[in-house]
């Protein structure tokens, strides 16, 4: 019996529902409080809350975009929508604050904000509020000031609050899901099941968080006969620091990654808040970001700067491929048929100097026009021993500027080095024009971001 708990009520999910977005599923059932504003993860009007364990094992409410969540994925989960927030007609504190402070005008974005704020309200160990909590919600009417005021004034739940009490209990147990029909959906728990399925249906569409794949379904109307979700595969989850590396499971969400690298890997700490929004990061994975092999993905430049490699698994073998050798061409990777990304491995010790830059129109929740990951290792004499200058958005794949990297080695990182390297970067790539930015601007950013790196690190390096 496949089902999930929706606002406390058990709801059945059949194979015919599995490929619907949860948003469609809800609205077709008359739960129209959850809104569609874009169907591509940008506006947050569709936000709902799932009950999930965070990286530390604490249970919490996690808001996600229901437009990018396949209904098959929520089997066994506990889901709350805006209709389930008020308690027997009594508004939740987050709802009353939105009413009183003028947080809604047309009201269309409001359910999404309510869900994001609801989750933030119960976040374990919260002090103040995290602006990231509402970074994935757009409002066209209010200009955000009153909604920010609601967030700033969030109280603390008391122990008697049933929502708070739920967090003390066991998390929902997620089993294997296998829904066969005209459109099938599988959410296995182990790699064995994954490989068995891949053998049976080599053409099956693979997904982890769905934040790229479901966008394809919604926006380009792609339909699949079968989908295999890796989100709950044990072997693909788990993050660990060992003596010589940090291992990040391909199916771990970016949100789960945040506390693991906090205070330890500056370049990822700088990259993650700029990567989409909280609502997307609650689902998006590194496996998906690398698997989709977009030239404008944000993690590749950062991971290239860290000399990361990938662990690839197939039914037959496990192998390790340096990330630098993984991208072969526009959206082409070194993955063989039947092969998956199992983990990202970051070698230790980390480079001494690391920076991530992202050029985009909007500060939060925008796709990169150009992204850059830079790192340096220096000897005791202050001379550069190795340099990594990696870029996204300037070529068909994420790329490194090898000539410029080489030119930095063996000398101090000073004005002269900057002057020598700028011309090498100037013609290094031949980016394209598009609606995000002109080729000229991208070319200029390749050089200017490097100068910015030099300027921003000058204090640290003297």
């Amino acid at each position: 019996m496949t089902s999930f708990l929706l606002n406390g009520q058990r709801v059945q999910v059949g194979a015919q529902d599995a490929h619907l977005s949860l948003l469609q599923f809800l609205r077709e059932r008359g739960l129209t409080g959850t809104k569609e504003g874009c169907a591509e993860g940008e506006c947050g009007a569709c936000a709902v809350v799932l009950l999930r364990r965070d990286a530390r094992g604490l249970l919490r409410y996690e808001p996600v975009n229901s437009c990018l969540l396949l209904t098959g994925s929520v089997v066994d989960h506990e889901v709350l929508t805006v209709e389930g927030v008020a308690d027997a007609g009594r508004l939740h504190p987050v709802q009353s604050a939105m009413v009183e402070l003028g947080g809604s005008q047309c009201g269309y974005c409001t359910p999404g904000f309510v869900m994001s704020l609801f989750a933030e309200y119960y976040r374990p160990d919260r002090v103040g509020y995290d602006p990231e909590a509402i970074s994935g919600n757009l409002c066209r009417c209010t200009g955000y000031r009153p909604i920010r005021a609601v967030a700033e004034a969030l109280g603390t739940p008391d122990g008697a609050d049933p929502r708070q009490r739920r967090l003390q209990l066991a998390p929902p147990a997620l089993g294997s899901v296998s829904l066969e029909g005209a459109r099938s959906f599988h959410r296995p728990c182990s790699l064995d099941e994954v490989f068995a399925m891949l053998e049976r249906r080599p053409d099956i569409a693979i997904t982890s968080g769905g934040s790229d794949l479901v966008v394809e379904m919604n926006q380009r109307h792609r339909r699949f006969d079968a989908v295999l979700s890796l989100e709950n595969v044990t072997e693909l989850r788990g993050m660990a620091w060992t003596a010589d590396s940090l291992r990040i499971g391909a199916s771990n969400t970016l949100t789960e990654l945040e506390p693991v690298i906090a205070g330890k890997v500056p370049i990822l700490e700088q990259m993650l808040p700029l990567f989409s929004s909280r609502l997307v990061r609650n689902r998006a994975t590194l496996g998906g970001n690398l698997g989709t092999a977009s030239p404008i993905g944000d993690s590749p430049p950062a991971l290239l700067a860290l000399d990361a490699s990938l662990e690839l698994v197939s039914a037959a073998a496990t192998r390790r491929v340096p990330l630098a050798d993984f991208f072969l061409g526009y959206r082409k990777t070194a993955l063989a048929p039947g092969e998956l990304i199992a983990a990202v491995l970051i070698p230790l010790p980390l480079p001494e100097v690391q920076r991530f830059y992202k050029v985009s129109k909007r500060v939060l929740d925008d796709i990169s026009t150009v992204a850059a990951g830079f790192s340096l290792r220096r000897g005791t004499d202050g001379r550069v021993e190795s340099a990594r200058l990696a870029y996204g958005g300037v070529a068909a794949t994420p790329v490194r500027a090898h000539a410029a990297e080489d030119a930095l080695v063996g000398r101090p990182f000073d004005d002269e080095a900057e002057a020598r390297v700028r011309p090498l970067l100037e013609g290094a790539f031949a980016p394209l024009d598009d609606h995000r930015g002109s080729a000229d601007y991208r070319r200029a950013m390749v050089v200017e971001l490097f100068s910015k790196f030099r300027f921003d690190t000058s204090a640290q390096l003297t």
Partner: protein
Amino acid sequence: MTVLGKAIAHESARGHVTGSALYTNDLLPRRGGAAYAWPVTVPHARARITAVDTAAALAAPGVLLVLGAGDVPGENELGPSRRDEPLFPSEVQFFGQAVAWVIAETEEAAKLAAGRVVVDVEPLPAVLSIEQGIAEESYLTEPLFMRRGDAEAALAAAPRRVSGELFVGGQEHVYLETNAALAEIDDSGHMLVHSSTQHPSETQEIVARVLGVSRNRVVVQALRMGGAFGGKEVQANAWAAVAAIAALKLGRPVGVRLDRHHDMTLTGKRHPFLARFEVGFDDDGRILGAKVELFADGGWCLDLTEPIVYRAMFHIDNCYRIPAITVMGRGVRTNKTSQTAFRGFGGPQGMVVIEDILDRIARTLELPPRLVRERNFYREGDETHYGQPVRDAARIERIWSALLRSSSYDTRRAEIERFNATSPHAKRGIAITPVKFGISFTATFYNQAGALVIVYADGSVQVNHGGTEMGQGLHTKMMQVAAHTLGVRLDQVRAMPTRTDKVPNTSATAASSGSDLNGAAVKRACESIRSNLAEVAAAELAVPACTVVFEDGQVFPRDEPSRALDFSALARKAYLARVPLFSSGYYRTPEIHFDKATGTGKPFHYFAYGAAVTEVEVDRFTGAYSFRRVDILHDVGDSLSPLVDLGQVEGGFIQGLGWLTLEECVWDARGRFATSGLSTYKLPGLGECPLELNVALLEKATEPGVVYGSKAVGEPPLMLAISAREALRDAVAQFGSGGIIELGCPSTPETVYFAIRERTEAAGGARRAAE
């Protein structure tokens, strides 16, 4: 304690936060047996349709119909003024235009089948820019003129002159609720259309026209909208028409819901403008004469382009006296979506141009832009270039000096200079700009409104009026007006969904006029009921009717509040005494007129004023910027509803900020709208909201002749954001030195980056030359 002027929550706020407030789009899944529509679009900017093959689509599962021109029982035409807008075209006029609609059992079926309709076309040459339109004389309007004095002579005699060109970008509305309509045959056998429309009466007119029936056979209801901003003023009609034709044909409810991509590729935007100007001025920066040409990219059909061009021309002066000026405005016809109303309606485009000019004058003379602006202000007794006296001109100065003080402008200017002196790569800029915005529809006949107020015998009240609720808080204000005028508690009043069978022949809820016009009508309806009730109360209390007070659900003699009757009890008595308890109210704005032939008149009932100070920090490496602080002082008259008005000011400002900074409309070489989703078209998010935003409403600002001394607030605050653009220029000016700053619009980080580079390279060049 009256509820008028009290800061209260939006009337639907509880519904918003619980998800129970319904929108048109939410009705679809609730109607059993509704069918769904999906458009068939053609990927050419212009093309003749040679054949449409629907066989494969019709054979697809769940498909009921493919609608085309042959299915229109009435007229295949949507144009509200000029008949230039076929619903089903024979020639494609813009990239992605809908030429047919698939109707199916589910949205999924309609969507998938739409891809199976084969449309053969013969591509034709297209006009894709304003410049190309001018070169090919492709126009939507005649040239429109306003003239004051002899501009040529004034320019010739002026000691200084600058001339230039400014392209002002368009803007996509991105109301969060995309367009939606649901048509059904009601229980009396007639057409009932639920539509997310700002103009139910026009939607009714167009539905009646395409069905070929009289308007009394069609009822349109607008429940509430999830935002509109002008985008649903005329452009909601097409979807209602499609739904109605299909519903009639199938005899069952049919819903149309545009997804975001369709909403962005099928509907119009704020008009991009190209301005060419020449101004003459003296050494103090006073403008002596100006010649301005404004070309608007109107897209493929007329829509509202003419009044929008007019409004741009009306606002080319903003707050400044221009003794001699000739303004020419013209709508250019291009093969793009039909550009349409958007908050400000051309006014913002005109105003950006004059503010751009003033900064050029200031930088030419090396004077502070703020000083040059002040020197050109209108004074009491001045007239605009179209001959309307600038009433309350002194308010400009009053607001300006109060805001300079409250924002600590001078101190911060000095702080900014200190910061910039030691920061080579990040520079800050600050600017203050004013706003004067004319209130009234420029088409005089639109300036009328009606209301129908009903008191039931238990004392509860229903308010119907012609305005629609799109989030702007109109219903909230109307409830406050009704409660105050009738002297009842707010909880006794219910605002009804807007319906054409309650109040007929209404105007669009637009031009910021919703509460002015409908408020006056509601007030009159309530006054008439109250005077009926006063007679009944007078008899009951044995006092003269003129001494009866209505307050907070109580009715009492002025001098004896203790002898109060309950309003509900009074209503019951009035009913038994056979006294009418409902009334219509009607209002038209007095004394407004405009003569197109001479370009003069008094098109506006009054002006709304405001000013804003914005501070920004810019990064030289990338052109990225962040707004550090914004201070606003805005004139809303005596606010009917301060929380609502505050929301309009803040929200309008951020929307204007988006338009001028990151919201870039990109059409590619084929005429395709390339930024057709929220992943490519970026509206402001939380990160763009200034770190500090201080908004104050002007005090002692009673507006005589408007409902309870209030003022319109919907559009004017959007233009306060021009201060952000001017602050960006000020920041750019800090790199290098001297001279005019050309800054593209919208000023995306890329635009700012190149503006800085131009300036640093120019300065570098000058330095090298000097060496």
